[in-house]
């Protein structure tokens, strides 16, 4: 059966809009469920670990250049 362009457009609208709604509705439930589980299993938010390790010298949380910028900012400020 030959589909006209309009048929194709209608199909696209129907299935497309349907998928968007179904997917996002499922996502609503999944999110609510996830939040409940997560909130129950973690008593508090503070319990996230500080990372123990990092690759070679990559472990500074403040990037090197920022650290330097900061130090220079402070040094400059003091000089004044």
């Amino acid at each position, binding site marked *: 059966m030959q589909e006209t362009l309009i048929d194709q457009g209608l199909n*696209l609208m129907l299935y497309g809009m349907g998928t968007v709604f179904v997917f*996002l509705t499922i996502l609503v439930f999944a999110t609510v469920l996830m939040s409940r589980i*997560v909130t129950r299993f973690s008593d508090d938010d503070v319990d996230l670990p500080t990372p123990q390790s990092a690759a070679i010298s990559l472990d500074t949380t403040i990037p090197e250049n920022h650290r330097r910028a900061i130090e220079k900012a402070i040094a400059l400020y003091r000089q004044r």
Partner: protein
Amino acid sequence: MEQLNNLWLSSGVAQVQGGQLVMLLVGLGLLFLAIRKGFEPLLLVPIGFGTLLANIPGAGFELAPVFDAAGNLESPGGLLYYIYHAGIETGLFPLLIFMGVGAMTDFGPLLANPRTLLLGAAAQVGIFTTVLGAVTLGHFGIMDFSIRDAASIGIIGGADGPTAIFVTSKLSPELLGAVAVAAYSYMALVPIIQPPIMRALTTSAEREIKMEQLRPVGKLEKIVFPLTLLVLVAFLLPDAAPLLGMFCFGNLMRECGVVNRLSDTTQNALINVVTIFLGLGVGSKMSAEKFLNLETLGILGLGAVAFCIGTAAGVLMAKLMNRFSQQKINPLIGAAGVSAVPMAARVANKVGLEANPQNFLLMHAMGPNVAGVIGSAVAAGVMISLVSGM
């Protein structure tokens, strides 16, 4: 004398065609809008300048490289050629932008009120009614739109630049310039397009609805959410996986707290470089024969319609949800579901403040706002999959 003649023949004045002249004006116009009017300058400055470069007669910015029989380079291609084929035709640049956008997105407001995802879904109605409009124009021979073109035009209604570029570069690359320009222009026009629609569809009482304060969202929830979304996408909608996968990856880097240096670079150097190249690459498709035709007018018109319908659908969806729920939603935040992050959320806030100067909707509107990004990425995945099989 021969050289002089060659120089003259190679000059732009001798080579210029009317179309190129007009396109140069279009490029200058885009730069004017971007710089003077503040229209999404991060994209429209590179797109506008790319338009200029691509339309310089004889400059060869979009020439393909020439190789001899042995595969050695005889003459290199133009800059825009390489950018377009390496980054846009392959889909890499939009995906990297999505990674960066993910790293910049805070899902906190959405997680505090997941129902607002439905507003992000509703606003995608704009996409699909526009598809219908485009096929109607095509069916009656008014404009030369195929189903692939219609899908690319519809995605303008997603109000999401990289998504629009991703879809259009896959389905209708020759429309890329017009679609990208329309998408970013209307995103910039959100403060003008949306408020009248929002006011028309709501009563003053509705606009004054105060929403309860959002609950605080824990770090762990924010870490698990992008993984939840990715798993759902993996099982239900793998067609949306490229866009949403990179989006979730960026967001996970942001939230997990252990790769801050990667997240920083993603949000800054990487996304900036890719933005420049993406814009130039889009500009390279702004040639006269592709842009200066009736279809572009149709695209601009349909895009405006898409934005209006999307806005209306978001507002109406919020009103519908209020029928069935105790916790009332201010319908203005429904308009933020079109995405256009963070502009649409600010507009919702502003219109809300007009109705009630104590009513701050910004954080509430951020939920549907980012939901709109997810919604249009889903719509993009579905359309690419369905249209490819038609």
